[in-house]
């Protein structure tokens, strides 16, 4: 495999400073990152550490002050807004904490829209939508409006929308951040399932339970990568899992 196909995403020297009221906020302070095809990477850290800003840079929703991003080996330095918008339909799917569904479009239309915008024939867009909604346990909700669904259901619709064009990379920004424990488990289960089928995922979350579904966890502090660890699933030293589960008198 050539380097360009093995590496879905690469970032070098990313810097982003927010200039709002008061002192400038150094959200991202020199980040290098590589994500290989098929990897499931989680970025965790306290709120305000800059992890969402990093994800926005990687999805072209914001521009870095310095540094470069490569998608599938292709440098994005020259990309304008329009080109990024195209990439977010074709190469990058994104899910957000608050779902960001179009509130006056039905569930079916929300999912089909990005496919139609990408030039997929309507019949094929419908077939893709039907398959994804069935897979996500939303068959029968096609005609519902987003506001009629629970948070967990809305996030599943958002996931279908993000994946309808089979993007090589899925970015997820706190996808369980506004869900209850049950909804969180559901999102976790679905991300793991798509990952097993080969979907590359980059997830930003402060929830360690969600992060532990990934096979690599990056700890992000104060705009920088503090640790980058492969989770191997090998029983940790000591009493490990039975130590945390055993009930004692």
């Amino acid at each position, binding site marked *: 495999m050539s380097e360009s196909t093995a590496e879905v995403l690469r970032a070098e020297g990313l810097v982003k400073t927010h200039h709002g009221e008061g002192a400038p906020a150094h959200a991202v302070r020199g980040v290098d990152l590589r994500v290989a095809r098929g990897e499931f990477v989680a970025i965790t*850290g*306290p709120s305000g550490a800059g992890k969402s800003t990093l994800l926005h840079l990687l999805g072209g929703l914001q521009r870095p002050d310095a540094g470069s991003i490569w998608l599938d080996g292709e440098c994005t330095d020259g990309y304008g807004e329009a080109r990024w918008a195209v990439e977010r339909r074709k190469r990058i799917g994104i899910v957000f904490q608050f779902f960001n569904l179009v509130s006056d479009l039905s569930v079916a239309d929300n999912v089909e829209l990005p496919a139609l915008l990408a030039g997929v024939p309507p019949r094929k867009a419908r077939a893709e939508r039907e398959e994804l909604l069935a897979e996500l346990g939303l068959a029968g909700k096609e005609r519902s409006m987003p506001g009629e669904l629970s948070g967990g259901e809305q996030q599943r619709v958002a996931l279908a929308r993000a994946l309808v064009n089979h993007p090589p990379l899925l970015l997820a920004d706190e996808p369980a951040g506004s869900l209850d*424990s049950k909804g969180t*488990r559901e999102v*976790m*289960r679905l991300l*793991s399932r798509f990952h097993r089928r080969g979907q590359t995922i980059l997830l930003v979350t402060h*929830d*360690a*339970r969600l*992060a*532990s*579904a990934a096979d690599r*966890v990056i*700890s992000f*502090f*104060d705009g920088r990568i*503090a*640790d980058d*660890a492969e*989770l*191997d*699933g*090998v*029983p*940790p*030293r000591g009493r*490990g*899992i*039975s130590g*945390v*589960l*055993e*009930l004692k*008198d």
Partner: protein
Amino acid sequence: MRLPLLALLARGPAHGYELKQDLEQLLGSAYPQPNVGQIYVTLGRLEKSGLIEGEDVEQSSRPNKKVYHLTDAGREALRAWYEETADEPRVRDEFFMKLALAPQTGLADQIALINKQRRQYLNTMRQLSKLAAAEDRDNRIAHLLIEGAMLHLQADLDWLERCQEELEELQ
């Protein structure tokens, strides 16, 4: 193990192996199973202290088995158990002492210690997620046990994060 065995016997008489099976069924595959020997030893102790009584039951083709039932003293002990609240979970004191004393020893970097500890917790968290996925969906008690362990780990991870934020500021 003593009080859970008493609690299982509150429902009616049972022998050692039945109690083991009851525990397994209740807590699911996630729970580290006590071996049956451990259960027999505990039952012996409970009998000695008068909380249960055993009765030999003849079996045609196998050695006798001992069926235990709760005594009045046993029921009283169980009642007292339910009266008490349980102790609070504790801070990981060993790790905390390592962290607090690291600068004085010059032998370890605090941030590196935190990172190492975090990796271990995350790996354990991952195993717990796998266990939860493998556990029978309808066994609510088993799922609550795993979820409890995950939430405790989550709290420890949050606390590591706080330690890192504070200590990085100092560096």
